[in-house]
Structure formats: C-alpha cells, structure tokens
C-alpha cells in the first residue's frame, strides 16, 4: 500500500522527464527540422557533431566553465562561511547580503551587468574608461567573453554556496571547535583540521552538483553573448539551442543534448555513490 505514495511523483517523472528524454534520444538519430517528417540517419548527427569544430570549442568552454565553478565560488563560499562562523556579530546581515544576488532573476542580473557595469556607454566600465583606465568590455573580446559571463554567474552564485556551507559548518560539533581554539589552532589550522573535514560530504555534494550544473549552463551565456563573439563563449547548451531553433536541425540539437546528459550522468553516478556511502555510515 505504501508504494502507492510513489505513484504521483512517478507519474510526473514519466510524463515530464522520461517521455521527453526518450523522444530526445530517438530524435538524435533522425534528421528533423522540427516541422516536417523526421528521417532516420543513424549516427549521422553524432558524426556531424564530431566533425564540427564549434562543437569542440563548446565542449572545451564547458570544461573551462566547470573548472572555474569547481574552484572560485567554492573557495569564496567556504572562506565567507567560515568568517561568518568565526565572526559572532553581523552574521545574519552578511548572509542576507551574500544571498541576495541568488534571488534576483537571471535576466535582471545579466542586464544589470551588461548595461550598468560592462557597457562602455552606460556602465561603470565606460565611466572608468573616461577617467583613463584601460578597461574594455570583456563580453566584446573573444579571449575574455567566457570569463566575462562566468564573472556574472559567479557573482550570482557564490552566495548560495556560502549559505549552504555556513549551514553545514554550524553542524560541526562545537566541542571540536572549542578544543582547537584552546589548543591554539590558527584560522587556517582550524579550517584544515576541523571545519573542512567536518563538512566534507557537503563540499563533495556541491562539487558534484557544480559539474552537473556547469554542463547545463545556458541562461547567462545566452542573454549576455549568445555564444559570441565568433563562438568564443559558445557552450554545449547554446550550441544545442542554436541548432534546434536557428538552424532548424533538431536532430543535431538532440545529439548535443545527449552529450550534455552523459556528463551529467557521470556526475550523477558519483552523487548516488556518495549518497549511499553516507547512508551506510
């Protein structure tokens, strides 16, 4: 009887996830413009992606993006969360400040950065340029565009990690922290030997989720650069979107989506392994 409780969520998952996922997998083997009758072409879409230099550029950008998000926001989040734990006053205030960008809509955040910060006409960068500082809009330079977009996403994202880490740090037994203090541990020793080991499962979980989310990244890239200039900030999801909705090549878009999902699946495997290990403990 208790298994009936699974039914509603199972039904939603089948309708919203499983059926579209199966259709996407099937479409990856067809040539389809999204309107007329699909034609089966076997692995043709995958072969075309393999030979598409933009696909490799997009994959490389996704890997760079993952590297950035596995390090910078996690380091920032950990540092700020530890400071919140150590500093006894103003913790709530700083938590709100750090978390605020997370709740602002993506489009608004992106437009603020594009128009009010990076723009050489209406932004802070333009003002500083007029003062003689040699600043350029990173979104306009192929060598910097991906990092320019990542900066915006970092600003929006790291506060979330900070709050998650802070919540985890508060679960670290107070006796361990007090003992370390009495023993004369420095801030870094406290981090290295007490706090980080104490929240290790949370950090690993966040890192696995970061890998999954990094391969799904779309919104900030699409709003700020649409993958440009000259494909320099193209990622797999913008490539799939362009294939589906601009090139009218839904088959190749589906093939690209499957490749995105493969990276997610690998990360999910590790996530489930970590979860089950924790369960065993």
């Amino acid at each position, binding site marked *: 009887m208790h298994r009936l409780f699974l039914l509603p969520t199972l039904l939603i998952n089948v309708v919203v996830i499983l059926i579209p996922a199966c259709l996407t997998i099937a479409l990856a083997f067809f040539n389809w413009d999204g309107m007329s009758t699909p034609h089966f072409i076997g692995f043709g879409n995958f072969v075309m992606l393999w030979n598409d230099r933009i696909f490799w550029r997009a994959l490389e950008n996704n890997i760079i993006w993952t590297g950035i998000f596995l390090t910078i926001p996690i380091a920032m989040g950990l540092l700020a969360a530890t400071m919140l734990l150590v500093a006894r006053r103003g913790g709530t205030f700083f938590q709100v400040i750090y978390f605020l960008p997370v709740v602002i809509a993506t489009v608004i955040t992106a437009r603020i950065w594009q128009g009010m910060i990076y723009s*050489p*006409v209406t932004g802070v960068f333009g003002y500083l340029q007029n003062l003689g500082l040699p600043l350029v809009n990173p979104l306009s330079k*192929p060598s910097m565009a991906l990092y320019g977009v990542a900066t915006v996403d970092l600003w929006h994202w790291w506060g979330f990690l900070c709050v998650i880490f802070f919540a985890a740090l508060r679960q670290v037994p107070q006796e361990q922290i007090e003992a370390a203090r009495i023993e004369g541990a420095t801030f870094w020793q406290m981090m290295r030997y007490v706090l980080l080991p104490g929240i290790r499962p949370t950090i690993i979980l966040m890192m696995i989720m970061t890998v999954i989310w990094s391969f799904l990244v779309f919104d900030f890239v699409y709003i700020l650069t649409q993958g440009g200039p000259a494909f320099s900030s193209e990622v797999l999801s913008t490539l799939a979107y362009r294939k589906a909705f601009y090139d009218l090549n839904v088959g190749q878009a589906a093939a690209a989506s499957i490749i995105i999902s493969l990276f997610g699946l690998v990360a999910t495997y590790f996530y489930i392994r970590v979860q089950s290990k924790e369960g065993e403990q």
Partner: protein
Amino acid sequence: MNKTAWILSGTATALVLMAPLAMAQDKAPVTWWYEQASPENQANLQTLLVDPFNAANAGDELSIDYRGSELDKQLRVAMLSGDGPDVVYTPGPAYVAAMAGAGQLLPLDDFAASLGWKDRLLPVFLDLGTYDGHLYALPKTYETLGLFYNKTFFAENGWTPPTTIPELEALADQMLAAGIVPFAAGNADWRPTNEHYVSIILNSIAGPDNVAKALRGEIPWTSEPFVKAVDTLNAWWQKGYFGPDYFSLTGEQAFAQLATGAAGMAPTGTWNFENVNTYFPPANAEPGFVGFPSGEGVPNPIYALGIGSTFSIAATSENPDGAAAVIDYVFSNEFYGAMNTVWQGEWNMPLRDLSGVTLGEGVLPLYGEAMGALASAVNANQYGYTTWTFFPPATDSYIVSGIEEVWLGSITTQDFLTQLDATFQQELSEGKVPTIPPRG
C-alpha cells in the same frame, strides 16, 4: 408576486442577461499571436486594428495575443500539435516553406483571387510566399537596407552622400581621421545585426544577379564576386569603420550616435525610422536616407529586400474566412496610412500602389519618400536579397556567427565562404531554400 410571475420574470431576466453572451457566441473567434510590442504599440494595434475590424466584421472576433520575442519557437511547437492560432505569423519565408511542406498551412490561392490580393500587392511577394505552386504566405511588412546619415552634420562638413564604394571609403577614411566612427553600428542586443552588413555587401558589391544565381545553386558561394564582397567588408572592419564598441552597443545606442555626430553614417534597415524622432530632433539634426552605394558594375541603388514576418492561415483553423478577412484588413490603404502614422518601420505592407495612402501629419516626409522609392525599385525589379529572407535557416545562422570569425581573425574569407557554401548546398538539396522569384 405568484409562482408563475416569478418564473416568467426570472426567465425574462435570464434572457436579457444572456443576450450579449449569445451574441458573443455568434461571433467566430480569430486568434493571432503577435511578437513583442511596447504597451503604446499594443494600444495602437487595439485601436487601429482589433476594434475597427471587430466593428466592421459582425461575424468575427479578432484577438491578439502578445507572445514576446520567442514567438517563432512557440509557434512551431503549437503548429506541430495542431493547436496554433488562426493567423499564423511566421518570421519569414524560410519558415513558411517548412510549415507548408508539413501541411500546417492553408493554401491562400482562393482568398487571393476573391479578395483581389494579386492586384493590390507587389507580385514579387506573391512569388515569395508560393510553395509547390500554391500561395501560402503574404509578408506583413517588407524592409530594406540603406544608408542613414545626418544631413545637418554632412552639410557642416561639406560632405555629400556617397553613391559608389570608392566614394564611401574615401568619406569613411576622412571620418576616421577626424575621430568620427564611420558606421554607427552595434549588435549587443541583436547578434544577427551582423547579417545586415553581409546582406549589404553581397547585393551592393557582388550584385543581386550573382546572389540570385547562387541562391538557385547555379554558382557556388565561393565564387570570385562573393570573395571580393566579403574581403571588402572585412577590410572595413579591420580599418575600424564599425568603431571600437560594436559588440557593446545596442542598435539603438549606435543609431543615437548618428544624431549626435559621434558616428557618420548608419548602414542599417528601414526599421530604424522608428528611432529617428527620438534622437534627431533633440540633437537639432536632420536625418537623411539613401540607398547603399554600389560597387563596380552594380546599378545604384540596390535595395536588398527583407521580409520581417509573414501572414498565413493555419490548416487547422476553424475560421479561415475570418483569418483571411483580418489579413485583408491589414492590406487596406486605410490601415497602412493609420498604422504608419503612429508606428513607422514595422508595417510597410507590400502594397503595389501607395498613391492612395494618406500618412498623418507629423510623419517624417523622408519615411514616405523612402518607402515610395523602395516600392518603385521592387516594382522595377531593381532589388536585392537579404540573408534573413532568402537564405535557408542554417546558412543564415552560420552567416551571423561566421562573419564575426572573419572579422576577429579566426578564419579567412575563403574558410567562411567554403563553410557557407557547404551549409547552403546541404539545405538546397533538402529543399529548404525559399522560392527565388524570377528577375524581370
């Protein structure tokens, strides 16, 4: 009041209350999904189209649903499921071919005959909406690319609008030397702005005859005239004609630079007429608009023809007559005059004869002149082909990003044209190239 009286009065009241409902039910709904429009322009559509249409057509009830900038994606999904609107508003002929091929659209031949569209509209547009021998679409608006300039600023500097490419380059070089950005241009808000310049050089340097041949598959895109055209565009980029902030400026910010004199000329589309009154009067400047200068052996001016969006009727429509009546209303002289008085650049319906159209006071005479010149040029077959109207989807999409790669040195002109040609030939073989009307 006895029981019978209660029943009678109750029935009478119910009938009175239900009368408007019954009348509304008699009216057959006509649905139309529109893209994004400002609140002001939504009000214009309500007062100039919806209200008068519904008043004039007792049997139909038109409603417009504003779907935003992602309309084409929503429309494709809805059409696929047979649940789209009656009036199908596509982003261009390339989409019409695919939708017609999939049986999602109703042939309009009978409506065109009974409503006289063939006599009232420019013939080239009827050819463009034809697929497999049947008419499936009519353009809502057509547009062209040309050269906006600041008449006041030009007069102060003793400049005249260029008519040849050497004249254009000489003038642009003078502007560069004077610290003026030659081309007011920016793609920060609309990356496909890139293809405006590709369309210009393909038609004004390689020439529309060559473009037509390539679109029919008679010559490859790697042919010499196209190499020369793309090389010229790249040379302009490398010399700095597009300014240092092309990737940072929005189209409107760039156009504003033209009014202030920060930029010298704007090679852009007629849709920018809607920005003229916002920026030129405050800067005490007078705008000018001419056809883009032509290269050697190409007549001047060549107006590259663009169709921003088209009208069709869904094959599943329950009120095709009502949908045809809406389209017919849009193609009336009265609606053309009224709409272009309040909203210029977006409602240039392809009427064959504009002499019966009256634009309201306050409309820039330049706008009427430009639209008249464009209609005459199209009627005389002196027109070119914009990439977003005549090129198949993947080729068009590649042009937008590929030309950036040329500008930024990632690939050469030859690489760009080779990939463009490969993509085009693939789509040509799949029947995705829109109909290319015969040239006069």
